[in-house]
């Protein structure tokens, strides 16, 4: 029977279909475009994997994906950019003092809070006073430091710079940074009901972006950080190399095309290694007793709690792990772009789109999340040329100068928002378990 054949080889067929789509782009548009899409598909797939760990395994509704991805991006700046010595000299003390004050304030609040008897009004006042004191101290030391740093050659640096390490180090560090922030967020917010958790995480991710945009001493803010070092060779160097010239001649490709293709292939290989490791890890985790416990918690929290499972702690753990994966993907994305642009972090692109990927791919299934990442990113990019093509054909009977036709052609760029919305709504209605549904395990 045909249907059962499709059911049996569902994921293989869907992935081959995806591969064919990419090859078609390679043939009809160009291989460079196809590889660019492929690389971003891989990064999106990793982000979707992270969201799937939180939503599919544990049912945690995290709408703060953008914030964690941005933290990963920030990590790649802080790890890979060279240190700005001058900025450290003029403002390093102020920043460090400010940092110490923050730590002392938070620590003393945390220590004092449980020591004062409950139900005592005074404890709110004491904490309030401590916070005010800490804040004033912060402003006194921090502000001059910040001003001094931002005045150091503002058009080129104007920030502290990074550690000057290879950018590959930033990938795990991005994960760790995101995980640390996720731990704090999870500690305070995971007790909330699912839709409140969604709104809280959305708010927190916006706060993270606002901080990144405005703390120029750390991130250069809206001035962007350009020219991040690369983990792969530069096109210019490749074109000079003798072995590469022979190779390009052998393939009968122009030198610049061949070099840009090779660079993209290198990125793709790196990403594939990461995705393979992550996939192996998460599949093993899903099959382990831990995965069984997570599913039990997701499907019935009360029952799992009654069986003696610590639901809160497991939620926190899975939230941190998922966020770490997203943070890592964020660092990889920034590496691929070669620049850190805080303005580019929009919730539509970095939060909601990733969610659409997970829902459409099949929540609870890692392969589904990866397929969803590929499909949705592909349509996000290709909807515009496809939309343009359709509209151009539909309106071909109109006069070329007709204002309606011009308006429609102009609007084709926004077809992708509509397409993604319709795809999501249709999936939720007719195939709520997604393209590759979660395996039923007995």
């Amino acid at each position: 029977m045909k249907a059962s054949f499709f059911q049996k080889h569902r994921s293989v067929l869907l992935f081959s279909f995806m591969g064919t789509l990419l090859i078609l782009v390679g043939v009809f548009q160009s291989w460079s475009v196809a590889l660019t899409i492929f690389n971003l598909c891989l990064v999106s797939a990793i982000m979707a994997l992270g969201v799937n760990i939180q939503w599919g395994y544990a049912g945690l509704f995290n709408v703060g994906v953008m914030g964690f991805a941005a933290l990963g991006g920030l990590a790649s700046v802080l790890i890979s950019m060279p240190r700005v010595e001058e900025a450290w000299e003029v403002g390093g003390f102020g920043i460090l003092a400010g940092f110490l004050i923050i730590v002392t304030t938070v620590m003393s609040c945390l220590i004092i809070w449980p020591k004062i008897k409950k139900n005592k009004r005074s404890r709110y006042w004491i904490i309030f006073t401590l916070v005010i004191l800490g804040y004033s101290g912060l402003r006194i030391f921090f502000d001059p430091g910040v001003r001094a740093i931002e005045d150091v050659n503002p058009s080129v640096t104007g920030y502290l710079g990074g550690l000057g390490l290879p950018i590959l180090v930033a990938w795990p560090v991005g994960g760790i940074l995101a995980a640390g922030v996720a731990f704090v967020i999870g500690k305070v917010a995971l007790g909330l009901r699912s839709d409140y958790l969604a709104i809280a995480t959305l708010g927190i991710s916006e706060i993270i972006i606002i901080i990144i945009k405005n703390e120029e001493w750390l991130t250069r803010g809206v001035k962007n950080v350009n020219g991040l070092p690369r983990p792969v060779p530069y096109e210019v160097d490749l074109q000079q190399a003798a072995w590469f010239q022979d190779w390009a001649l052998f393939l009968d490709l122009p030198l610049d095309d061949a070099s840009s293709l090779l660079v993209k292939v290198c990125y793709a290989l790196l990403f594939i290694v990461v995705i393979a490791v992550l996939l192996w890890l998460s599949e093993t985790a899903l099959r382990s007793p831990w995965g069984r416990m997570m599913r039990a918690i997701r499907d019935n929290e009360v029952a799992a709690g009654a069986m003696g499972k610590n639901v809160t702690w497991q939620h926190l753990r899975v939230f941190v792990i998922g966020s770490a994966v997203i943070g890592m993907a964020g660092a990889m994305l920034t590496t691929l772009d070669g620049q850190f642009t805080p303005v580019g972090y929009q919730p539509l692109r970095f939060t909601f789109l990733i969610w659409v990927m997970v829902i459409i791919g099949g929540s609870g299934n890692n392969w589904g999340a990866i397929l969803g990442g590929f499909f949705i990113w592909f349509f996000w990019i290709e909807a515009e040329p496809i939309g343009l093509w359709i509209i151009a054909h539909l309106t071909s009977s109109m006069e070329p100068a007709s204002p309606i036709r011009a308006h429609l052609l102009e609007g084709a760029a926004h077809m992708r928002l509509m397409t993604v919305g319709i795809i999501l709504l249709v999936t939720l209605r007719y195939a709520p378990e997604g393209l590759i549904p979660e395996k039923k395990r007995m």
Partner: protein
Amino acid sequence: MTDLLNAIVLLSNFLIIPGLSYGSQLALGALGVTLVYGVLRFSNFGHGETMSFGAMVTILTTWGLQSIGVSIHPLPTALIAIPVGIIVTIFFTLLIDQTVYKYHRTRKANPVTFLIVSIGVMFFMGGLIRFIIGPGDQIFFDGTRFILKAKEFKELTGLDEGLSLKMTQGVTIITAIIIVAGLFWFLNHTRTGKSMRAYSDNENLALLSGINPRKVVLVTWILVATLATIAGTLYGLDKSFKPFVYMQLLLPIFASAIVGGVGNPVGAIVGGYVIAFSELIMTFAYKKVVLYLAPEGTTVDSLIQLLGTNYKIAVSFIILVIVLIIRPTGIFQGKTL
């Protein structure tokens, strides 16, 4: 004495009047979110786009009216275009409800599914709006810019500080008062309004008492579309219309609804003003006020600003997060519609 008056005028001009008008816009938006939450029981992420859609239809109508020379100078033409915007938006929301939400409602889907569905609606409407009117800035304000100019105020009172009242601010505040009064009258004094409150309070009991759920849902969407169109248009008149901005407005609106206590209309209004005023209070530079109030000869170096203006929008998110963590039920705990 004049110093004190100057300080008060300064505060009114830069804090109280902008706070009132921004707060009214947020309150109207939050009322829509709260109605959906109270009756249909989900957080509607598509509400920002509904506001944007209503404003868009109003703008298109305004342009139409302007081109045939209709004007109600000194008031902005958009005011007479609003009813058209409301009617079109009502039809559109009902269409979305019938094609999208109804299916999940009959299957009694859980709130998270509804939330994800509303994200789908948000994408679709966002695309549609950009497709129709484009992603750019649209200015559709006409009529007189100021009701009271700062210069006139100075001449009138002889104070150093001027007080100005923009037409859009006046229109916003007055419209908000009328709409809110109308809404409360509807909810508390009409049969349909009472049945809505009953349904929101206890669905099963309401069904047993013979309340028609379909009518309640219908009326809710009509109210939501009306409120969203008015809020969206007022915001667009005051600042400017840009599809992208309404998506950003979603969070302050959620913050307003949650701070007041989601599902509670009074809470939504109070929440709107709380959010608006805290944003302004936290980022206002108090230097000049302090100079007026302090004894003569005092010098102040800093701007006396708690947070940079860039952090304005972060204030509402921080309040949102704090309220969610400390008191998720909001100020007006445990009350619904």
